[in-house]
């Protein structure tokens, strides 16, 4: 009779559970069909970005003399631009630019938001007030204006754009992380950890961070479309990634605007590409948020409880 212990039941349950990521994915597909479509779009874009060299019929800067402003044909599937470059190839390489900016910028933003939010939220008191006042003041400047001003100071280029976008988005979202940290700060396990002498970095890394992962993941998933669109806007205005880099936004400005009347395809394809990718990323972010939210209470850390259960199972053997 005593053999049917809690440990046995736990073991049986655990063998049925998949890994965390797989379970997330399964839930996404089952409950959120639109989110799955979004995920598919983003994955296709990622694939195109990585294998651009093999997929594009021409290079992104291959100028064919005399073949400018040609309408879509069998030879140039999406037409050519004002310099004689194939639009399809430029769009394919443009995916790489967008993906790089999106992913790197979001990574930077997530790190910045996490650091600022953790420090501000956990330290509390004077540090918190000072940091929050500074964040408040920065938030007063409309994003685009501030970015344009900073780029006027540090110049254009992919690195500068990623830096500006990442840091600004991170500062904007540090509040969300801070809010989550404040909510967890007074929980029993944090207080207990401190009571037994846990150092602050250890507390932050091993106890607080896993439990604020959900909002961090959400802001990362919304960050990617935001980065892509904002980089396109900056490039469109001429202050983002300079030519000849095939940024979709840049394609919409320059040659696009001057020749739009006689060659509308210059404007249609980059815009369409932007819209589809951003739509997919947005929808994916939304679906992720819905799937993760009810789990917010345990953080993404079933992680925490799973480990504890395993340890308990070991001890009692």
């Amino acid at each position, binding site marked *: 009779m005593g053999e049917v212990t809690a440990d046995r039941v736990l073991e049986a349950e655990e063998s049925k559970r998949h890994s965390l990521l797989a379970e997330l994915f399964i839930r996404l597909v089952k409950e959120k069909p*639109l989110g799955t479509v979004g995920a598919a779009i983003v994955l296709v874009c990622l694939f195109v970005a990585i294998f651009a060299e093999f997929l594009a019929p021409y290079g992104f800067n291959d100028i064919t003399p005399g073949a400018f402003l040609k309408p879509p044909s069998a030879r140039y599937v999406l037409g050519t631009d004002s310099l004689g470059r194939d639009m399809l190839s430029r769009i394919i390489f443009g995916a790489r630019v967008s993906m790089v900016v999106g992913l790197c910028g979001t990574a930077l933003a997530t790190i910045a938001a996490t650091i600022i939010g953790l420090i501000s939220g956990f330290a509390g008191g004077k540090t918190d007030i000072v940091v929050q*006042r*500074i964040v*408040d*003041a*920065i938030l*007063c*400047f*409309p*994003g*685009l*204006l*501030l970015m*344009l*001003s900073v*780029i*006027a*100071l540090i110049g254009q280029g992919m690195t500068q754009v990623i830096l500006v976008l990442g840091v600004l988005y991170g500062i904007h979202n540090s509040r969300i992380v801070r809010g989550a940290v404040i909510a967890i700060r007074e929980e029993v396990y944090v207080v207990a950890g401190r009571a037994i002498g846990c150092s602050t970095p250890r507390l932050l890394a091993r106890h607080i961070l896993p439990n604020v992962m959900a909002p961090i993941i959400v802001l990362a998933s919304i960050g990617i*479309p935001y980065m892509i*669109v904002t980089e*396109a*806007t900056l490039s*469109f*205005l001429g*202050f983002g990634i300079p030519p000849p880099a095939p940024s979709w*936004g840049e394609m*919409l400005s320059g040659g*696009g*605007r001057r020749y*739009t*009347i006689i060659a*509308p395809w210059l*404007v*249609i394809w*980059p*815009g369409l590409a*932007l*819209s589809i990718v*951003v*739509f997919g990323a*947005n*929808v994916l972010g*939304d679906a992720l948020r819905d799937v993760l939210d009810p789990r917010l209470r345990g953080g993404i850390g079933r992680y925490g409880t799973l480990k504890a259960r395993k340890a308990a199972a070991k001890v009692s053997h």
Partner: protein
Amino acid sequence: MQGYIIRRLLLIIPTLLLVTMIVFCGVRLVPGDIIDQMVAEHAFASTLEKHQTVEAIRAKLGLDVPIPQQYGRFLRGIITRGDLGESLWKGTPVTEEILFRLPATIELGIIAMIVAVLIALPIGILSAVRQDTAGDYAGRTTAMILISIPYFWVGLVVVIAGSLWFGWSPSTDYVSFFENPLENLGMFLVPALVLGVVMSGITMRMTRTMMLEVLRQDYIRTAWAKGLRESVIIVRHAVKNALIPVVTIIGLQIPVVVGGAVVIEQIFNIPGIGRLMLESIHQRDYTIISGINLLVASFVLVINLAVDLSYSYLDPRVRYR
């Protein structure tokens, strides 16, 4: 209530000071070689003040005295005279340049926000009330699409389609509203529509979320139990309570409108602050850039204060914290 207002006003002052400090530091960060470049460019341009030396430009930017003194001068100039310095390109006072271009952007912003609210509110409310029906999904997908489409692309497509199909192109003369209202509105209608429609996506989703929350409340359930008609419940009880956070959201959209205005003004040839900003960056006119930043940031701060105060007016619970 008065105490609350005074407290909120006092809280603004440190943030405002920080804003001025950020703008002030921005100009300090101008790398030295840019100033040399400006000197070189000015030396070749014939229409401008000739032969500005590095010292002259430094003096204009106020960089030749110790920093605390610079900051003091800067603040005093703004508070007492509304003086934001002079344009490095044309030599005219920055305040004058900005005020000249301000009305266009304000008008664009106001019309765009009205359009956005008119579209977003009904759809958002309907979407929440008929949750999980086909109408709801249609509304949510529309909002998603509106958020995802880059608004400058929409503007471009509108300009192309307009000229291809209707022979219309953005007008180039700016006519003030007080001179000729109809022509003025005609100029702003299309760009404001573009900006407003795209902005409505965000407001739509927020309205839907807020309505959903309100509809779950007890007092709504009581109203149902009492037998009130659906229209009465929605209009008289739900909407008013759901609108409070929506007002906040609308207030917070102001920075988005300003950002959007920069691009839309460029596409539709509207002589507003956005275009001024872009031109100043091209010409490296740092005084105008910092002037615009300061003005807009202060404006956003004031709007946030107004939204907060209106929040406290609409929701009596906030007042007595």
